[in-house]
């Protein structure tokens, strides 16, 4: 099963102009625990998908929001000449096809 089939929300946005944050919100505590237990969302995979060094990626499991948060530095700061996504709003695509079970 892919992440896009189990998650309720998969989104990305800036947290300030230099940081990208991705949120995956689950529909239930069971789905949250399934994905957490699977270990599918790990820094190695995220590093490969987003071309960011492992040590710069942070993954937080936020139970009150039934969410997994992934945070990393933006490869290009918001609004720089090479930027293609000023708000960082369309960077969630690489997550959608991740196999979680």
């Amino acid at each position: 099963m892919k992440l896009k089939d189990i998650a309720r929300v998969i989104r990305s946005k800036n947290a300030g102009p230099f940081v990208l944050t991705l949120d995956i919100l689950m529909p239930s505590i069971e789905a949250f625990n399934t994905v957490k237990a699977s270990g599918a969302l790990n820094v190695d995979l995220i590093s490969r998908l987003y071309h960011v060094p492992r040590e710069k990626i942070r993954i937080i499991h936020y139970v009150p929001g039934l969410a997994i948060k992934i945070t990393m530095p933006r490869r290009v700061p918001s609004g720089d000449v090479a930027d293609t996504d000023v708000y960082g709003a369309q960077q969630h695509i690489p997550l959608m096809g991740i196999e979680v079970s």
Partner: protein
Amino acid sequence: MDVLRCYAASGQLGYGVPKDNFKRGMARHPHYIGADMGSTDVGPVYLGSGKMGPGRLSAKRDLDLLLCAARDLKIPLIIGSAGTAGGKPHLEETVRMVQEVAKERHLHFRMAVIHAEIDKGWVVEQVQKGTVSPCGPVPELTADEVARSTRIVGQMGVEPFRAAMEAGAEVIVAGRACDTSIFAAIPIMKGYDTGLVMHMSKIIECSSICADPGGRDPMMAYLYPDAFILESQHPERRCTALSVAAHSLYEQADPYRFYEPGGMLDLTDARYTEIDGRRAKIWGAKWMPAQKYTIKLEGAAWVGVRCISIGGIVDPVMLSQMDYITEQMTDLAKELLKDEIPPDTYRLDFRVYGKNGVLGPLHPKGQGDPQEAFLMIDVVAETGELAQTICGVTRQHLLHFGYPGRLSTSGNLAFPFTPQEILVGDTYRFNVYHLAEVEDPLSLFPITIVDL
């Protein structure tokens, strides 16, 4: 202590506050109205250029709506991060609009204008003292980088708002402010628990984004000594325990810890419940005062002038070779112009929307060629004239570029209109995003009192 009704009219003032829902909240008699008018989310161009984000018509319409409502009930109105970036020209333009509204509507009140543009000399002194640090993954600040910025603003905390209130202000128009401080100043002055106040402010500064479904309608918070209740003023937006808890994720690196001027908001023990199917009740946040008071500095530097050309491509033979074509075109254009315009004095880039214009190398592979693409030729150069020249030359050669297997030999691009060059204008980058230690939270933010 009684309940305090804290009304967040907007998290993005100037783009059209929903009128009916705003008035719905006013009928509940809030004790004050707050509105956040700015952000760095919109990129560096507003800070760098001095221009405001929203158009003047919608910005003034929102100010008119809020000013009339606040003066009708004689309650404080606090507007922060004026004119999108909260620097001197942004603040001046916002104050001008407020003055126009006051005159047109025959409103009389004491206005406090709080300035947030920071003297570059002061910033350099702090850099030399070693009391400036990066805010996140940015390089250390240097005196050169400070000099390159067009302007620098500081995000004020609650203290300048408090001082303005103590000077008798009824309307406060502030430059760049920390989002929370716009909404937190009055409740903290009145003695409500700082942790609760900061948590409440952090949520309502985004108006109804924390509701289900989320939206931009005004949000009312009912603040008590031991908890706060949230109620969206759109009848179909519900604040649920989950929707509010999940809001801590929004645009934040860490959902449990928020760093503000003067301290840190810790949400580890925050609790969320629901009342009556529409409203949520929240408590448990803790405020940890910082040892050193820091102000976040934001600055933007000019990079160049941007000109673009855009066109559609539907030819499948061409669409199967876009990488090759854009590489060849880059070399060709640079070679053609090299005697007049040295290649290292400008940036020439191609984006193929429909293929990988947004994600570039991150775009998932193996999806085949698109059936249609939207090409953008992107040039950034030292002047608009140069950018237009480079763009025009590139566009014209691309239009007639002979790639392998070409069948369609009369023109490679479908322009939606002419002229084909679109001058976008000055482009900037954020070059200051640092924390500066300050002894006095008021010292950087002078207040002017104006009686209208």
